[in-house]
């Protein structure tokens, strides 16, 4: 055992030393408008992956406009002035007309009980007409079609609490096409088919949260754990907010948050960095510099007492337990990663070993070291699904016992070493995928100011001691900073005996 661990150390160290080797393949540059690029050469196959990381997410949504970051992400696939229109001049006019009619409708609606029903109906009909007229100018979904037809794979985007990401891979001869289209969608997007897309977003909300007992539970958990900080609301936003989005809301969001200095782009694969730089200047330099967006001001007030949330559901229950923890730039961050490895890494994690294997309490159980995001103080999350015939209460007691154990008994050296070894090996395995690398490079650059932290972070984890684990557990895993959420059966189930 000792021998193999030493051998592994050598391999990992070799890769650590190879950071300079890795660095040789990386080219970084920042455009005058502040847009930062990281280019990684990997010429194994004629393919290339692109990852755009926008340092804005649902934490930047405003009141009454929750989920708007997500709505803009959808609109970023609707085309631009040069892509997706049959006649951009007439289309813009028709789009402006929709907004004008909608404004009148809103004005009337705001009169509340005094609103004129007949006028409302007229305006509704007018709005419908205006939308139909605008639709006649749309070359529907051309933007996405171009990407797909040109061989894009893994084409998607995601909106999280902290960030919005756009990613895809192309055959490497489509490099310029990517530059052209990505620059165009952030520089000159056209908000066509907005209200139809609003319905689609509403449908997504229905699928992910309203028709999913587990999604509903997570939403309720966050709403209880956070009272002031925007982590309290899921990136999907509230249904009522979604139903009332206006084009102006999404526009404003883009103008504020999609400034070049707030974007980071990584390109990994079969790419010539000189060519990437030339194309970056050609397509992205025209984006006006703009002011950096305002930071999130609200700091979550200190939690002073356990919070419990119940969701009534006929579905099989789930249990979530979250403890408040600091943001991912905090010195204790690597300790949480180690704790996560101890509790839920693979088949040796204590949660799996105790709850799933030994006591057969849980169908599945795991943890997450940062939830729902990491940029601001967040939660260390433990979750479990009870086995048939087991209760949430039993699970909660059992999980509580494991957490207490972390506080009372120093973790043994074998376990600590295992967790660290797995982190190192995990890094090596990550290096095989263009898409994964592009994503990691942007993440570390934005959140830690430097992509090299991807390697250095492993060293930070190496320094974590058993005493650190115990101290962090004792400091953060306390009842008064805890939120517990779980499903309960509808009343007739209590009837059981």
């Amino acid at each position: 055992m000792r021998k193999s661990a030493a051998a592994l150390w050598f391999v990992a160290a070799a890769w650590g030393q190879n950071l300079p080797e890795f660095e040789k393949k990386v080219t970084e540059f920042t455009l005058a408008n502040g847009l930062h690029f990281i280019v990684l050469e990997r010429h194994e196959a004629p393919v290339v992956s692109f990852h755009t990381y926008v340092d804005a997410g649902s934490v930047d949504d405003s009141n009454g406009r929750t989920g708007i970051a997500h709505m803009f992400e959808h609109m970023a696939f609707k085309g631009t002035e040069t892509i997706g229109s049959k006649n951009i001049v007439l289309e813009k006019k028709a789009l402006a007309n929709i907004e004008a009619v909608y404004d009148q409708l809103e004005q009337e609606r705001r009169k509340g009980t005094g609103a004129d029903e007949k006028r409302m109906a007229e305006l509704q009909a007018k709005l419908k007409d205006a939308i139909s007229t605008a639709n006649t100018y749309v070359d529907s979904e051309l933007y996405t079609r171009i990407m797909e037809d040109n061989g894009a794979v893994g084409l998607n985007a995601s909106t999280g609490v902290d960030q919005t990401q756009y990613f895809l891979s192309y055959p490497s001869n489509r490099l310029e096409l990517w530059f052209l289209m990505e620059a165009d969608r952030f520089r000159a997007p056209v908000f066509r088919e907005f209200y139809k897309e609003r319905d689609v977003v509403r449908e997504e909300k229905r699928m992910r949260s309203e028709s999913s007992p587990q999604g509903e539970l997570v939403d309720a958990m966050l709403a209880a754990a956070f009272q002031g900080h925007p982590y309290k609301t899921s990136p999907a936003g509230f249904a009522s907010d979604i139903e009332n989005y206006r084009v102006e809301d999404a526009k404003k969001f883009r103008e504020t948050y999609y400034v070049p200095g707030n974007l980071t782009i990584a390109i990994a694969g079969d790419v010539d960095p000189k060519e990437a730089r030339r194309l970056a200047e050609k397509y992205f330099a025209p984006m006006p510099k703009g002011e950096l967006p305002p930071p999130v001001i609200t700091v979550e007030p200190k939690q002073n007492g356990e919070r419990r949330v119940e969701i009534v559901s006929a579905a099989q229950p789930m249990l979530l337990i979250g403890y408040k923890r600091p943001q991912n730039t905090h010195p204790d961050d690597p300790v949480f990663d180690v704790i996560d490895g101890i509790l839920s890494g693979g088949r040796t994690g204590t949660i799996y070993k105790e709850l799933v294997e030994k006591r057969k309490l849980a169908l599945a159980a795991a943890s997450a070291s940062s939830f729902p995001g990491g940029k601001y103080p967040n939660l260390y999350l433990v979750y479990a699904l009870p086995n048939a015939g087991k209760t949430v209460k039993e699970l909660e007691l059992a999980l509580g016992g494991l957490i207490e154990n972390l506080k009372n008994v120093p973790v043994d050296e074998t376990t600590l070493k295992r967790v660290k070894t797995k982190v190192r090996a995990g890094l090596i395995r990550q290096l095989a995928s263009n898409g994964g690398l592009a994503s990691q490079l942007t993440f570390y650059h934005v959140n830690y100011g430097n992509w090299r932290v991807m390697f250095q972070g492993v060293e930070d984890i190496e320094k974590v001691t058993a005493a650190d684990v115990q101290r962090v557990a004792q400091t953060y895993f306390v009842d008064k900073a805890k939120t517990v959420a779980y499903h309960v059966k509808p009343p007739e189930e209590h009837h059981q005996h």
Partner: protein
Amino acid sequence: MKPLLFLATAVLAAQTAAPPSWKTLKYPPLRDPHIPEVTQFTLSNGMRVFLLENHELPVVSGFALVRTGNLFDPKEKIGLAGITGAVMRTGGAGGKTGDQLNEQLENIAASVESNIGETSARVSFSALKENSDEVLGLFKSVIAAPSFAEDKVDLAKTQEKSGIGRRNDDPGDIASREFNELLYGKTTPYGWRAEYATIDAIVREDLVEFHKRYFFPKNIMLAVYGDFDGAALRLRLEQVFGSWTAEQPPVPDFPKVEAEPRPGVFLATKDDVNQTSFYIGHLGGTLLDKDYPALEVMASVLGGSPFTSRLGSAIRVQRGYAYQIGADWGANYSHPGTFTIVGGTKSENTVPAVKTIREEVDKFIQGQPSAAELQSAKDKILNTFVFNFDNPSKTLSRLVSYEYFGYPKDFIFQYKTAVEKVSAADVQRVARQYLKPQNFTYVLAGKPADFGTPLTALSLPVTPIDLTIPEPKADVSAADEGSISQGKQLLQKMADAMGGAAKVAALKDYKVAYSVDMSGGSGTMKAKQTQLWMAPGTIRQENDLPFGKVVAYYDGAGGWIKLPQGDAPLSGPVLKQMQEQSFHDLVGLARSASIPARRVNYVGPGVIEITDGGLVTRLEIDEETGAPKRQMYQATGMGGPQQVEEIYGPLQEFGGFRLPAKSTVMQGGQKFAEATLASAEFDTGLTRAQLSAKP
């Protein structure tokens, strides 16, 4: 860095050139991907090996593909293959326990995993180069010498059963599962599914036999990829595997798919959702069909993209009905797959969405794709073709799959060439030949009360889907005359202890009140319970709970329940629970000897088993005093069957009878409630009218 120069360039660029149009871009030719050579050979024991060296990262990984699958599950033990696949790894191997394997592997950041799917078993490993020898040894043990430890067999069965209890939670899962079952037929291995009873029927010996039958060298293909020297590894593999020479007769072919179309709407009602998940389609074909390339192009035009396909455009883009919508030809290697249109829409749009889909499919079959649609569908396939080669390990996996299913080595290139040749007329021809909308099976999982437009508007027969999860058949012990008479004697002893067998048998009615402390759910709760009982088994229960009063009545066949929010006739699991409560009543059980339908059987020291139809319970009785000590049985819960244990305290006198003053109820090994008897009255002249009166 030379920021000044960049700044100048940027300003210049901004001032001079408007960005070109995407239409004018010219793409340089794509260089051909490197297609690596795979080395193939056979070990002395007949195991076939495929090696591909790649030295980019210091990692070695591989997998063994074994010709078996859950299609070989015995009918009464559905789930056996899956459990065998899981326990091969978790149950330990080669003299090491599962936990020892876990530690040894994870200490060196390596893994060995195993699973058995529909048409193959796969055992895989991954290790850093330095540990690859050590891990290969463990990998071989898991394949050739799994121990199938009993406790891990139990664990896997528990997990499977929990999964069964959760299978109706997600409407998408329901729709997908029922669709498969309808299309392939639920009496066939392609359509059936594991139930509590089929999992309960599985014992360790079954796993041992299943493994022995299918895991032998000649039935295995081994693929290894990564940072190794091919010649050295070849020797090493011979060392590790060569001495394993198990033999079995060749494995038969997979069963044939023989299913008739099941046209119509099949509705799974799920009242806690506001969205309908739908699966629409019929059986399709295999990858070897000569029309497969044209069918792929066809499915792509029809529903390949949620945005740009015919269905995506009609359902998502033009009408905003759905977030998820798509169509897939779904061909398989070895047997016909399913042509599927899948999506979800809010409840009230269900009927319009389904109608639109049907109209779009009809329109699609009648017409030809436009030149642009055809080009787009072909471009998508051809321009993404290079991603079949973006990682060398894909070439290895593909080659092994082709060998496994008997496909030509260059199948992927044949496919590419065929796609290049597909014309609009081909698409139209295959659409007409293969799509049969009149045979479509429409599976909808959602809340019909909110549909708005009723399903009848679709003018299709509607069949409800029963989502009830069948309870397992309880185990009943064997009996003979001796054990039955011994059982009756012990039961009589208990009846005597409770007030006298004759008195108990003649009892007409009684009324008891308990105070109950419950610790279920996620807190404790106090309740008062009154139970009225009339011979032979009519009961009324009144429960005062913190959230209100719950009253239930059961007369041996049916009854009702009244909750704070309203009342309802007993049905489903609640009916089952009342039936069970009537049966498990201790006084009622003491009368069992005089009830002809019941069998009382002595099954062990101080333990009798009482059965009545499908109901079973075990009573533990003090053989000296006749006092009841424990009752153990399986009860119905919303999440599946629960193991219940009632532990009785000492008997206490109440109005001429003797009952346990305290009882503790355990569920699944954990304390659920404690009941203290407050009062009991016997033969008070209760009437059925009194019991059945709604409060």
